[in-house]
């Protein structure tokens, strides 16, 4: 047999195969209903699904590992030599893990031991599994694997602590640890979820290279279909513990057979705004922006005191906003204008200061200099110094719906808080307003008595938005409201926000790192980089003709379908 044929055979050889894998909770509820997929050498299989679909459970089962409270109830995980991984003893499985089957966890910052130098951590894997014949051989491998993942391999770098690395570098160290022993199978659990798009692009490139050049079988667990398009050769779509569609990447993404896959794909925001991700069409040039003079069409069941502030053309204006912690400047003079009924996207990567700007607007961060004014009136920095009227008019929605609602309070009680603080409503009026707000965010009235623990992430975020809406704000500040949510839930929240904006005519500041959402949510974009606004203008202009090199860089690195 020629060497070429051998290589080809090796390329398509199945390294790991799961057959009718079933996993259930110890209480008997089945989580995986017979999952089968094959991981082939040099190929990457993407396991796609939303939170709770069982994709991580399936991924961990490939390592012969089940989280506490779960147990294996049927099916096999076969390696290429025919051994059933799940029939092995604990010790046998441990020998394989990190050796021939390795795992890259989601959060590198949590998975690296902060009290160990990175070189030592990678060496530990090699020592445990007995790589090479001598310490020198292991040292060589350490240097080699660091080069493989695109990191410097010198002694000084190996002696760094995890906290001395950036998020992207930490994740590469995680990948290096998984790759050090030359595994046959690598299971990656959303390894780029916490990373910026630019960093994500680099890490994805590294992963792709490792898989294809070293003939490793890869399993990539993710909910991000755009990333799938970048890295995967094959895709398996999971829904509620079953694989509903499987096939080559191109086929699944461009000619999906299952309704669920189509729904998932339909929910992915795209830069060009071709796709509609909700009832409200994406903001392209053809769609007129919200008429700033339109009366809010909200059905007002309770009369509210009319705002008696003199109206000017610009609703919210920020000038020369500066803020520093100690000697570190976070914001270096931000100027922004927000018109009535306008939606502005504040775009930036982590550390750019975008959340800080949002918090300054809402009065949650009072250490700034410069001014934030609402309808021509300069606001006090702290929310407690602002008048009740000013507080009503600017509302803020937090990033994480898991943390922004008090777990010990019913949803209704949480939504009522802003009303109680304005102090002018009776019990009955409060309840009516709460119900109205719930209705606006498309939650049933029965949610009023539920606790956050009984709600899904999307429902919680809706409840949090209802809390912001209950006082009919004129400016809604949304801080990364979709980043903690699944893509289809994200789509429904974006849809909701757009609908609300059109209905109520409120202005919106939408803070995000996801440039792909731009056309779906905003008429104007401001790009924030290192505490400065580097690019601003109408969404179309900025996306089609970016002025600043940073914006161009962001646009090129964005993964797309």
């Amino acid at each position: 047999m020629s060497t070429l044929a051998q290589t080809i055979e090796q390329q398509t050889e199945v390294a790991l195969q799961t057959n009718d894998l079933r996993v259930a909770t110890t209480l008997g509820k089945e989580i995986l209903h017979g999952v089968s997929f094959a991981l082939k050498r040099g190929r990457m299989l993407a396991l796609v699904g939303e939170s709770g679909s069982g994709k991580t459970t399936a991924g961990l089962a490939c390592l012969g590992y089940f989280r506490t409270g779960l147990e294996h109830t049927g099916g096999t995980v076969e390696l290429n030599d025919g051994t059933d991984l799940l029939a092995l003893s604990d010790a046998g499985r441990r020998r394989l893990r990190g050796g021939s089957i390795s795992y890259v966890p989601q959060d590198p910052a949590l998975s690296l031991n902060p009290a160990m130098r990175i070189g030592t951590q990678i060496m530990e894997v090699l020592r445990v599994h007995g790589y090479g014949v001598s310490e020198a051989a292991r040292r060589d491998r350490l240097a080699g694997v660091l080069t493989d993942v695109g990191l410097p391999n010198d002694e000084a770098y190996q002696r760094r602590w995890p906290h001395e690395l950036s998020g992207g570098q930490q994740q590469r160290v995680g990948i290096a640890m998984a790759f050090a022993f030359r595994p046959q199978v690598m299971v990656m659990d959303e390894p780029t979820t916490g990373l910026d798009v630019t960093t994500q692009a680099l890490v994805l490139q590294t992963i792709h290279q490792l898989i294809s050049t070293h003939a490793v079988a890869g399993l990539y667990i993710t909910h991000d279909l755009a990333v799938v398009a970048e890295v995967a050769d094959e895709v398996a779509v999971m829904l509620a513990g079953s694989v509903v569609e499987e096939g080559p990447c191109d086929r699944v993404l461009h000619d999906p057979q299952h309704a669920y896959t189509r729904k998932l794909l339909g929910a992915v925001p795209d830069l060009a705004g071709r796709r509609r991700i909700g009832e409200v069409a994406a903001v392209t040039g053809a769609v007129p922006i919200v008429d700033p003079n339109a009366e809010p069409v909200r059905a007002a069941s309770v009369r509210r005191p009319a705002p008696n502030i003199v109206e000017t053309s610009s609703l919210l204006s920020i000038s020369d906003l500066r803020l520093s912690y100690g000697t570190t400047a976070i914001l270096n003079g931000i100027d922004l204008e927000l018109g009535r009924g306008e939606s502005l996207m504040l775009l930036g990567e982590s550390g750019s200061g975008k959340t800080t700007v949002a918090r300054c607007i809402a009065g949650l961060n009072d250490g700034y200099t410069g001014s934030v004014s609402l309808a021509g009136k300069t606001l006090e920095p702290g929310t407690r110094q602002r008048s009740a009227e000013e507080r009503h008019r600017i509302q803020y929605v937090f990033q994480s719906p898991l943390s922004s609602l008090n777990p010990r309070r019913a949803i209704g009680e949480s939504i009522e808080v802003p009303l109680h603080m304005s102090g002018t409503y009776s019990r009955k009026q409060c309840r009516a307003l709460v119900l109205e707000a719930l209705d606006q965010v498309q939650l049933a009235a029965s949610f009023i008595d539920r606790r956050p623990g009984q709600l899904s992430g999307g429902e919680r975020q809706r409840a949090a938005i209802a809390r912001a809406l209950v006082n009919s704000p004129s400016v809604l500040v949304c801080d990364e409201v979709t980043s903690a949510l699944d893509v289809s839930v994200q789509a429904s929240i974006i849809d909701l926000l757009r609908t609300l904006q059109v209905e109520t005519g409120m202005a919106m500041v939408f803070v995000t790192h996801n440039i792909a959402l731009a056309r779906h949510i905003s008429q104007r974009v401001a790009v924030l980089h290192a505490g400065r606004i580097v690019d601003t203008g109408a969404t179309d202009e900025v996306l089609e003709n970016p002025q600043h090199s940073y914006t161009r860089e962001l646009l090129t690195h964005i993964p797309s379908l």
Partner: protein
Amino acid sequence: MTTIDTHSEISTSVVETPPGLLRRIIRQRQAKIGLVLTGVVVLVAVVGPLLLPWLTGYTSTEFAGRPFQPDGLFGTDNLGRDILSRFLDGGRSLLLFAVLATALGMLLGTAAGMLAAYQGGLLDSIIMRGNDVLLALPQLVFALLAITVLGPQGWVVVLVIGVTHAPRIARVTRAAASAVITEDFIRASEMYAVPRWKILVKDVLPNITGPLMVELGLRLTYSIAAIASLSFLGLGMQPPNADWGLMINENRIALTLQPWGVILPVLAIAILTVGSNLVTDAVARASATVEESK
């Protein structure tokens, strides 16, 4: 809606209400044992005094005969009083003082700890360093000092034990509250300018009940022990009042002759501490499962 909210589609739309806190407590075997143990001792302490002298024929201070004689069910004590009568009458004050002292300590400690965690900065430093000073004094020594100065009265004992518990509770509270205070729902309440005390009571306090319950159990146990010790040392209840701590002291000289005078109160105190600990542990576990299911 054309988009999907997967969760509502996939998960069965029935919302399961977790069983109430009380039900989850009772369900634990430990809690049942704890409740029975505590219940027995509390029953003796509360009902006991009402049964005198009907049950034993004597009041707790009446002389029944000569000292250390095996008369009656459990014999007589050092002054010839009926041990059973004194035992039945001796638990009420101990229980009452222990509960009051623990309540006082919890009140002071929780308030101080939450304030320190929420306000931070100078107030935090002042409260916590003040705490450290109090912690440096051994509890019993501090109690001895206060009682010597103010006299061996009930309220002094309660005050002293309560105040010495407070710093320990404050530390636990502060640690638990600091974690809660970083959550966004606290930011949200601040944004709506909810008064600070209301944020502490409604947003912070309900979310730290787990660790506080553990602390409550621990401190209750310590209170019982501390008050019994003070009585034993002659600084709590004064003769001729009946008191378990005092009884142990009075009768220990005749331990070999007439051990019931010591054994009965020791058993009661031991059962009470074990029982109350089991119960509060169960409460802590039950309230912790609420948080996990979030």
